């Protein structure tokens, strides 16, 4: 019996570990290092309608136990993706999540319509990339536009749609808007905004100045966001991510309420790490005689043993 197996929307998922959007690109390089079919799922790097050349270098700064990036959603656009990448991705025997980003409801609709007949499982709308000025970021400040984007996207497909948010002051409200407009789940959390200044030059190290902070030290914020949303939405599927580097991190996010666990920055540090996390989580569960699903949302259990 596979202790890691889990279910979402009647789909059997081998294990809860999925590749977070971005750090692993579209798995071409990764597939030469690990077997993609062993993963619970994969999320593409966010695809946009038009190609984006991304930001100028430096795009990456290592922080102590964290990472600051300003890739700027570099990608070749939806048409290139469909011509050159979707076929390879269809062939992986794993949950396939397509991450898309855009400026308005038409962008999202356009992309979903182009891609919807391929063998993919979920969409993830990247509503929270801190690295694009005109992009998803502003959607969060314009609730009407946000509602339209979500509604129109959900009307364009029968597939489940996840909304990806970051550490936002009004996260609960945003999730409410999402659920109200038809989203099936949420992905928490995207990177936080951060900056590092080189004190020798007096200049921000990233060419774009501000970037997104990910990695180990955003985990407490991720756990908080996941917990808070799980508390308010007991049955909403949550893909949790933020600072997962080992099975203990993964279990913490699961206990906070994550149904699936995304691994991002850790894969850049060591592309084989996800296999280690899968193996150690399985070992942990078997030593506790539990399934993965038993521990999901466990931190919300009442003392009277009521289980969500």
């Amino acid at each position, binding site marked *: 019996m596979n202790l890691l197996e889990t279910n979402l929307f009647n789909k059997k998922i081998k294990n809860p570990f999925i590749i977070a959007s*971005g*750090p*692993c*690109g579209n*798995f*071409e*390089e*990764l597939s030469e*290092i690990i077997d993609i079919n062993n993963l619970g799922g994969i999320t593409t*790097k966010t695809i946009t309608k038009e190609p984006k*050349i*991304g930001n*100028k*270098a*430096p*795009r*990456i*700064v*290592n922080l*102590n*136990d*964290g*990472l600051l*990036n300003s*890739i700027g959603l*570099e990608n070749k656009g939806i048409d290139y993706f469909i011509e050159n990448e979707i076929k390879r991705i269809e062939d992986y025997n794993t949950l396939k999540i397509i991450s898309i980003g855009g400026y308005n409801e038409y962008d999202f609709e356009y992309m979903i319509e182009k891609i919807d007949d391929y063998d993919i499982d979920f969409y993830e709308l990247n509503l929270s990339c801190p690295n694009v000025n005109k992009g998803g970021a502003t959607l969060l400040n314009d609730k009407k536009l946000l509602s339209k984007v979500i509604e129109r996207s959900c009307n364009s497909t029968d597939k489940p749609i996840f909304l990806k948010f970051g550490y936002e002051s009004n996260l609960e409200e945003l999730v409410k808007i999402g659920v109200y407009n038809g989203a099936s789940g949420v992905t928490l959390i995207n990177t936080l905004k951060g900056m590092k200044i080189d004190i020798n030059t007096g200049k921000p190290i990233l060419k774009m100045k501000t970037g997104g902070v990910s*990695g*180990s030290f955003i985990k407490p914020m991720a756990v908080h966001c996941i917990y808070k949303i799980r508390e308010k939405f007991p049955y909403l599927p949550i893909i949790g991510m933020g*600072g997962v*580097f080992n099975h203990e991190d993964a279990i913490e996010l699961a206990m906070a309420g994550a149904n699936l666990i995304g691994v991002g*920055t*850790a*894969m*850049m*540090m*060591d*592309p*084989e790490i996800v296999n280690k996390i899968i193996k150690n989580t399985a070992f942990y569960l078997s030593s506790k005689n539990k399934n993965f699903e038993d521990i999901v949302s466990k931190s919300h259990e009442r003392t009277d043993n009521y289980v969500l």
Partner: protein
Amino acid sequence: MNLARVVENKSFYNYGVITFKTDKKLDIEPGQFLMMKSKDGYNLSKPFSVMDCKDFEFKVLIRNAGDFSKFLIKLKIGEELLFRGPYGSPFSKFIDFNKKYILIGGGCGSAPLMHLKKIYPNIIEDSVFGFSDYRIKSIVDDDNIFVDRIDGMNPVDYILNRNKGKDINIISCGPKGMFIYLKYIIDSYQTAWISMEENMGCGIGMCKGCPVDTVDGVKMVCKDGPLFNIKEVIL
């Protein structure tokens, strides 16, 4: 990732030459790099060129640039770290073995060129390795190490002068400023290959963290490089 154990560490504050031993037989070509990280902590792996490599051992030349390189320089014999690779295209992919090359190294950029010189001595016409700290001579052994200016010239002028009139093919590795100067002074019929550096994330092309602008659009240093034709790169 693989484990490497320090077997020798010759270093002073600014630079170090460290030899590691591993369990896995290595096959690293000159120009390739390894991604290295300490066993503890959740930091990115960082790229370092290999300066020499044989069977189970490899050698790196480290400049004290920040936390991780400082950590490397302080490693004691027997201490361990993690690495993966080799990554990046080897020099041999671009080199025309019927030609002769001049090597121009700036600081730690000299490391892969020294490796190249050792493995393919026949294709080397001349070389210069410029450093800013004379103590480098106590830990790196090469006749062509120069500290600061040579006969009042910078290393690039010096070596081009010394090889005037020859059919010049250059391979260079070092700071960006050196490449900008090189691009400015070499003639259009001359070839120069330069090995670029950029802050890296994954080291294998998937994270899009290490862009370099080229005439054919944005490329990744780690996967499409680190060696580029100087004419191709927008510096």
